[in-house]
């Protein structure tokens, strides 16, 4: 749920990166954090386990610039990907304005991708959202790995509704900003429509 402050002339929106464990959600945020001007970003927060797995969420506030005198701010969140953190994932989806599904391109992670995608739909539904009505983009991450499956195959199973999708290598930044821009744009268009 976006927040519009007429007093400080700000629009704030929430984008959630979803996907199976170790698909690269946190890496996406880390890359965005590393490549953004200091004045456009806040501190990145990672609530993680001792082994650097996301425990609750990562959080990165970003300023994208002004629209008609309103500063546009995006709060980027990741969910913990591991299956047993489902209760936490549900909490993070509350008030979401846009979703990025990060899929792991490796053949052996296809089941995990599909399980996570199903879990996303279910958890959104519980909060009263419909994934097909939300700003939503898909990212196929780890395209550089030798065991990455064919793109057409991924598209067919991960993106049957043919939302905007992007190939990515989050560790080097390929596709990271394209993904972010696509979802941010959809969120603003949705805001303009007044829902």
């Amino acid at each position, binding site marked *: *749920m*976006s*927040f*519009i*402050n*007429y*007093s*400080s002339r700000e*629009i*704030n929106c*929430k984008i959630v990166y979803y996907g199976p464990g170790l698909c690269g959600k946190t890496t996406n945020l880390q890359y965005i954090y590393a490549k953004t001007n200091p004045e456009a970003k*806040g*501190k990145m*927060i990672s*609530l993680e386990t001792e082994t650097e797995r996301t425990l*609750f*969420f990562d*959080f990165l*506030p970003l300023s*994208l*610039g*002004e*629209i*008609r005198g309103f500063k*546009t701010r995006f*709060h980027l969140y990741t969910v913990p990907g591991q299956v047993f953190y489902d*209760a*936490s994932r*549900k*909490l*993070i989806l*509350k*008030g979401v304005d846009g979703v990025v599904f990060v899929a792991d391109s490796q053949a052996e992670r296809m089941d995990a991708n599909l399980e996570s995608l199903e879990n996303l739909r279910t958890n959104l539904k519980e*909060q*009263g*959202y419909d994934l097909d*009505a*939300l700003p939503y983009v898909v990212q196929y991450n780890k395209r550089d790995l030798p065991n990455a499956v064919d793109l057409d195959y991924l598209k067919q199973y991960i993106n049957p509704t043919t939302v905007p999708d992007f190939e990515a290598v989050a560790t080097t930044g390929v596709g990271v*900003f394209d993904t972010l*821009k696509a979802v*941010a*744009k959809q969120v*603003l*268009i*949705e*805001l*303009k*429509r*007044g*829902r």
Partner: protein
Amino acid sequence: MSSTPMVLFEEEFKQITAICDQLHRDAAAKAVFLVDKNGQLLANSGETGDLDTTSLASLTAGNIAATGGLAQLLGEKEFAIQFHEGEKDNIHISLVGQRVILVIIFDERSSLGLVRLRVRKACLELATIFEVIHQKASETGSTVFSEITDDDIDNLFGDG
């Protein structure tokens, strides 16, 4: 879409800021914050200069969300108040209505008793204002942004 955006207009922003200022003085607090349940900072008062207020808002909302999840597991509706005690600073967190979180940071200049007393009064006042804010938001929604053009949005992303 399940909910309307939170829209805060000048008039109500001044009112909630005034209440935060008053609470800051009455509770002898270091700082007072109002945070949306989704982690957006709505207003603050007091010694906020050295604090990362954006992170504070996000973490507070995460904390409230996790505590709410715990409450549900136990069959409680919610735990309306939380208190974290530190060596120097303490944090008192309470829910206003169902949508907003009031955060008080205080040190030895105040006490938990005083903070709780003052928070109770401020919560009632804030709840009334947020009723109005909620009402206004559902009437106007974000349609006020309908004048934004596709070009405006494109321009925002134009420079790569």
